[in-house]
């Protein structure tokens, strides 16, 4: 079996633990400490930011323009429209910039 296979199985188990774990563990606590809750609230944005920020360093003008346009569209539109806008700018500019 490939590495990807085992990564996937382990990720599936880990994900299942998050889906059943809240019921089995967290629901037994009366209160979550506000600092813990603030930390948990920050998890998704913190993790996902690390996948965007360093990618910007290695990027060029076409990618920067795509990200700026996508971010502006995201202020108004949904995930799909921001994604399509960013992709359109990226593909168009790459035809010229390579």
């Amino acid at each position, binding site marked *: 079996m490939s590495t990807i296979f085992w990564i996937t199985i382990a990720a599936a188990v880990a994900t299942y633990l998050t889906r059943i774990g809240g019921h089995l563990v967290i629901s037994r606590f009366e209160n979550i400490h506000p600092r813990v809750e603030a930390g948990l609230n920050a998890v998704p944005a*913190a993790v996902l930011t690390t996948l965007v*920020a360093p990618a910007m360093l290695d990027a060029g003008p076409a990618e920067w323009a795509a990200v700026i346009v996508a971010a502006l569209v995201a202020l108004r539109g949904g995930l799909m429209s921001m994604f399509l806008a960013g992709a359109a700018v990226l593909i168009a500019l790459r035809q010229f910039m390579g």
Partner: protein
Amino acid sequence: MSSQATAERSPATGDFWEGFRLSIPVVVASGPFAMLFGALAVGNGFTVFEAFLMSATVFGGASQMVGIELFGQHVAPWLIVLSIFAVNFRHVLYSAAIGRHLAHWPLFQQAVGYFILTDPQYAIAESKAESGRKVGFAFYMGAALPVYVSWNILTALGAFFGQMIPDTHALGIDFLLPIYFLGLVMGFRKRPLWLPVVIASAAASILAYKTIGSPWHVTVGAFAGVVFAALMPSSGEREARP
């Protein structure tokens, strides 16, 4: 649909179709991302079957995208699993919140129910419970199954067609995931401390990327944002919620 057919249905069947109707917007909204995941997974070295397997077993869009992105960066397997776990950690809160509404199901049904507890599934189940009605297994599965089935089929389709893309650079395939992740980050912008957390994580991840190098920028950057949020003075003052 004739009224006679409706009358002949058992209550469970009616519940199932009630859930099914609620699933349709989710199917439509998630479909393109399933295809995108399949296509990008193949671009990052997955086979069609491996892309399908990840959709079928993990069943969490954002975390799957994180998985293929890190795999493409040749990150150590355990760090990939840890990152997927971190992105999916929010489910703990859904699970804790919805648990009391599913507790009347047989254990096996509960085990299945938690497997497909996604963000929209939580929203559908929670709003049904809030309306004062019981969240039945048939209703829950009616809302979840169409999403699960379409997510898997469209992943495989996307992966299949992804194999045929000739010039991935011209189509920007290598940079679509950062744009997608940026969209997810922006989606959290109403949360408390969002901007300072994003700035802290961005700065720490860039610094780690430049010094210790990939893949540690993910762990270091995420840790910086989470610790920052926990240590902010406002975090200690806010009232505890159950």
